[in-house]
């Protein structure tokens, strides 16, 4: 049983996509990020991804790079991640963590899983850890009852999709386009094809991320995916308009994911 199963059971029942919002912990400050994340939950995010600011974010475009930089310069430490997750969980929100691998490895994979679970986190999204290298994490996530969200990409072969979904729990993260994070005008046709290819290998829910920024795009993505993942657009709103900005965007996106009937039902 995955920790996120009840969430997706509900969104499927409601015939809609789930809305997943991303923001880095510690951005713009540790307390500030907790407030922003709670605002996102209040305004309609079914799940938040709490990002770990990292010195070498090779999968991120300029917006998230700058946010990570801000957080690190403001003195973000890894222990602040757990307090941030706790703040979301204690306010009734659901949180998973999204992190590059080295901070987890350095902290100690089992210790990280233990502390994340204790903080009320539900799982981990690992953009630069493939299941092939993930034996320690697979063991630790099983021991501490956390979901493992691995990524598939338009360039993934059928074998790799099969291997990746077999190692995943909670949901599978489909990167919509080949490229780094950042809001885009179009999510790209590769996303729908990738979701279809992934469905052939798993009954797990599939979330689509990379590029979504508007309610209309959210509706479009929700028509073929189980969850819509939004990152850079939230970071931009937080930078420009603070909590009100992220609340407004979450509300717009939450409406978007309800406009189109989910393909699952």
């Amino acid at each position: 049983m995955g920790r996120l199963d009840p969430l997706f059971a509900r969104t499927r029942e409601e015939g809609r996509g789930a809305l997943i919002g991303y923001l880095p912990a510690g951005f713009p400050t540790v307390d500030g990020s907790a407030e922003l994340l709670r605002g996102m939950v209040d305004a309609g995010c079914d799940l938040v991804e709490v990002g770990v600011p990292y010195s070498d974010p090779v999968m991120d475009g300029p917006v998230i790079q700058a946010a990570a930089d801000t957080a690190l310069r403001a003195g973000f430490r890894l222990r602040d991640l757990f307090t941030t997750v706790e703040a979301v969980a204690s306010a009734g929100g659901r949180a998973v963590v999204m992190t590059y691998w080295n901070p987890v490895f350095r902290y100690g994979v089992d210790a990280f899983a233990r502390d994340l679970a204790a903080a009320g986190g539900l799982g981990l999204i690992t953009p630069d850890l493939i299941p092939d290298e993930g034996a320690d994490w697979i063991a630790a996530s099983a021991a501490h009852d956390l979901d493992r969200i691995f990524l598939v990409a338009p360039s993934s072969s059928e074998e790799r999709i099969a291997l990746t979904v077999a190692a995943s729990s909670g949901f599978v993260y489909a990167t919509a386009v080949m490229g780094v994070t950042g809001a885009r005008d179009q999510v790209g046709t590769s996303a729908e094809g990738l979701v279809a290819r992934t469905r052939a290998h798993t009954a797990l829910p599939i979330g689509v991320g990379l590029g979504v920024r508007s309610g209309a795009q959210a509706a479009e993505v929700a028509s073929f995916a189980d969850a819509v993942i939004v990152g850079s657009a939230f970071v931009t709103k937080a930078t420009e308009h603070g909590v009100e900005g992220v609340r407004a965007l979450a509300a717009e996106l939450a409406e978007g994911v309800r406009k189109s009937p989910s393909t699952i039902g």
Partner: protein
Amino acid sequence: MSAQETSTGAPDPNAAGPHDPDERGHFGPYGGRFMPEALIGALDELSAEYDKARLDPEFTAEFARLLRDYAGRPSLLTEAPRFAEHAGGARVFLKREDLNHTGSHKINNVLGQALLTKRMGKQRVIAETGAGQHGVATATACALMGLDCVVYMGEVDTERQALNVARMKLLGAEVIPVKSGSRTLKDAINEALRDWVTNVDTTHYLLGTAAGGHPFPVMVRNFHKVIGMEARAQFLDQTGRLPDAVAACVGGGSNAIGIFHGFIDDPGVRLVGIEPGGKGIETGEHGATLGHGSPGTLHGAMSYLLQDEDGQTTEAYSISAGLDYPGVGPEHSWLKDTGRAEYRSATDDEAMHAFRLLSRTEGIIPAIESSHALAGALKLGQELGPDGYLLVNLSGRGDKDMDTAAKYFGFYEES
């Protein structure tokens, strides 16, 4: 002809052997692929192509021909007796990678990967560069083979290596200054990876050192093995024996791994890597990854790296742009842990002393990177004494470093 030998009877640097990583690129606990899934397809494609090419006589012959007729190999082995007087009287021999076309060892790997790019039917090449030597070598090979070339270079490095920026532009490459992070080699690699994940269908990432996700570390090593194989034969020829120690500078580790592999199965030969000690290890401003780092993942592989308690990469420092890198190739981590190689450091001042010393005693101006190996050799020579035999990899020439050197030695003030 066995699989291990070429038609001339010499060992084949491309052959598989006991020092290869496992199928998924692990050297013991190091290496592997800590990479986004989006790039795994490209790494698989590259692995498959490389595995075919390394066994394909047509490929290996074409590579050997380019090394000979274009890069100018074999490079010389030059004894440095006047320099050696300062090294405890040990005999010192220099492997002259500075004499290769484009002025450093980098051309070996670049020609190999450029040939692979053609085989894969890709038209666009991207690369990172620190000192600019790898960027120049890549721009050169792309000009030779008619490939489009984009080079990412930290903004700090575009300033301290302005001459190489001009060379790349003349050769037809686009040079993109990287303004993120520490604005040096590490960030140039980040930016190149971001480009690659976006354009992977048309683009080969021509990584310039023996680091990164599998197959880069083993492939880059094998393209540079020619350094060690030539040097071993030349050393035997000139002295009738093997060296007591082989010294090479270590940035990402490509010139070092290339020369080390000529001697890896000679247990009597010490393999000594010299890392940049910067302003002194105690100042924290250095790039001594193996000596003072700890294991972790960066740029696709598990290896030693400079990091803080939270696993954030910390900034390296060296007077030499080519060594200013907080990571290192995974095979070096393995050689360190197994004890087959040892790693020391030389400070900026020690390297600059050796830089001037070689210039004045032998009439050879070394790259500042290579000067770290020379500084290491001065100490090793003292330890070995007059009976010692030393081989130093002179990985590149120092023309590109004249501005740094002129400032360091105060030449501009004198004139």
